[in-house]
């Protein structure tokens, strides 16, 4: 398939408002790079030829309609679903070499919130995830977990069973668990979904704080109204990369038209045919 005809992949972008003391220097590998990544469920491709580079720490949004493959891209990035082609690199290195430097916040609905653990238990999962086999949480891990709970404003709910939290609180528990990994790149799947407006602002403030501390935050997001305000740079995705770059230049009406109305059915139809092992009509 001709990549150029299907999309106009973004080139390495540097959000304009970022401080000039960007860590990117000539010859230094980019923070995060997807090189021609294709993902298929079974034989059905759901994400075609993603070619995208993030060079500086920023708040990076992955935007697109339902079924566009946003979450899939995140999961492929973390090796949770296999790629059918292409590669992902962090600081020029493969996933296996950098896993401890990554934090992941999955979608809130993916877990059973009636599970018998309390808030502290969940955050400790992040704090202790670097310890190897047979090691148990010690004082350092507990203090770290407590500090992370404090950062998301849930310090006084440490002992509460997770099923008795509101949606926004549950999302912040997940965020605290990722913070407890003390990562350099955070990948979040729909961190604002099902969260009330004031919790959204709090979560956004925490993410902005991470960015200001020099971390890269990549978040899957579907709400265009807030995307423009929150993200420094975005990638518009609809089974392929439609456009990528600084938010103001990417969220244009023609790009949105292409993303939200412009799947043209071609990739859909092609995916069906590939899944069948057949030709399109």
């Amino acid at each position, binding site marked *: 398939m001709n990549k150029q005809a299907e999309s106009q992949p973004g080139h390495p972008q540097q959000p304009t408002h970022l401080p000039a003391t960007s860590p990117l220097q000539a010859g230094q590998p980019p923070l995060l790079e997807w090189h021609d990544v294709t993902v298929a469920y079974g034989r059905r491709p759901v994400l075609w030829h993603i070619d995208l580079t993030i060079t500086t720490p920023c708040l990076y949004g992955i935007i697109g309609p339902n079924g566009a493959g946003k979450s899939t891209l995140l*999961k492929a990035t*973390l*090796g*949770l679903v296999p790629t059918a082609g292409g590669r992902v690199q962090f600081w020029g290195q493969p996933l296996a070499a950098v*896993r*401890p430097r*990554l934090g*992941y*916040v*999955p979608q809130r609905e*993916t*877990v*059973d919130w009636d*599970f*018998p*653990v*309390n808030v502290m*238990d*969940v955050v*400790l*999962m*992040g704090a*202790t*995830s*670097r*310890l190897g*086999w*047979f*090691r*148990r*949480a010690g004082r350092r891990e507990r203090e770290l977990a407590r500090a992370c709970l404090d950062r998301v404003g849930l310090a006084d709910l440490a002992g509460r*069973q997770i099923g008795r939290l509101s949606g926004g609180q549950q999302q912040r528990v997940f965020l605290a*668990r990722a913070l407890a*990994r003390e990562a350099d790149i955070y990948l979040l799947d729909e961190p604002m979904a099902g969260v009330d407006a004031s919790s959204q602002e709090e979560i956004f403030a925490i993410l902005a704080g991470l960015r200001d501390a020099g971390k890269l935050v990549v978040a899957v997001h579907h709400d265009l109204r807030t995307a423009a305000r929150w993200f420094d740079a975005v990638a518009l995705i609809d089974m392929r990369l439609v456009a990528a770059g600084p938010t103001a230049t990417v969220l244009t009406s023609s790009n949105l038209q292409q993303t939200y109305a412009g799947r043209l059915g071609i990739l859909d139809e092609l995916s069906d045919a590939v899944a069948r092992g057949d030709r399109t009509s």
Partner: protein
Amino acid sequence: MMATWVSATPWEWLAAIGPMHGWAVATAAVVSACCAMVGTVLVVRRLSLLGDAISHAVLPGIVVAVLLGGRPGDLGVLVGATAAALLTVALTEFFHKQAGLPEDAGVGVAFTTLFALGVLLVTVSGSRIDLDPGCILYGILELVPFDTVEVAGWEMPRAFVSAVVVFLVVGSGLWLTWRWQVFTAFDTEAARAAGVPTVAVTVGLLAGVSLATVAGFEAVGAILVVAMLVVPAAAAELLVKRLHHCLLLAVGLAVMGAAAGYLLAWKLNTSAAGMMAVVLGGEYLLAVLVAPQQGVLARGMSSVLYAWRVQCEDRLAAAWRAEEAGQSAPLPASLVAAAAWWWLRVQGRVEPAQSGARLTSQGRRDAELIVRSHRLWEAWLGRHAELPVDHLHPPAEWIEHHLGTRLRQRIEADLGRDVRDPHGSTIPPERG
């Protein structure tokens, strides 16, 4: 017989059990503790059905190991059984992923096939092995004390020794990998993303299940093993809300159920395995009744308390409205209302007066807030919900018991100053 049993003192009772039954009880207790430990994790991972499957599917592994010269309770048999268990899981995955079968159906196909294969192997090999299909289903707990081995000079039942070994292995395995077991069970994808070897953690758990199952197989049979895996864990998860508490409680419930079930069966002269499963089921029922949040009693209690609060608040509000209209408080019209009046008097919110009763100053303040909530809600609904005026009272009669200070103020701000309710009454101000 029943009479002597009931009248005996505990000590006589214990002495009457004797070493034979004592060993049987001890074996049953250790076996059920093993099963409850792994069962706790299985149940929260929604893998109960897989535990069921494993407990049946280990049979061909046991038979093959026995045919190759192992003896029930030996290490070789444990290995064979674990291999068969993992084969079940692999087959299930295969049916699910490759053949597109729903996962539960895949489990159903895999374990019934393997179990049937085991039954065939037992019957075909006939006298060459001493495994009886009936024993496999129901166990031979009563015969456990007669097959003994010597350990450090002590003669002990073989099944007890292997159960203790399995308990130590499974227990320490869980203890050492607990952190990862919890993370994987709660959120497998995030655990994988964080570098937890989730496949190894799961395989380890399933190997533990098959070990516990094999330990239980000989003693209590395939059917009861399923009960021991699932029932105490399910009961414990109703009662406590952290996974390691669940595990400890499940072990306690399982041991209690095993001991009580065995002794009851002995006294009533019936199947030990069957009675243990019945006792475990009884424990689960009890847990359903007394569970702190979702329990039948707790929910019943909270609806009764709610109804009582509503009743008391309605009495207060009625008295306030009567006062507003310059009348005396209405007499209670029902027994419940009379009880509510009595309770309000005990609380000092109403006091006796010449014509019946009147509100105290505390009672007046409380009543005012309820009437205020009622009228605010009527006004708000009237403005925002397009309801005819005569439909506003019932919803307000309900919501007046649920509005707090902050929301009342928000509603008031939304309505603006000096608002009356849709019936023209003034809305009392907030003065808590």
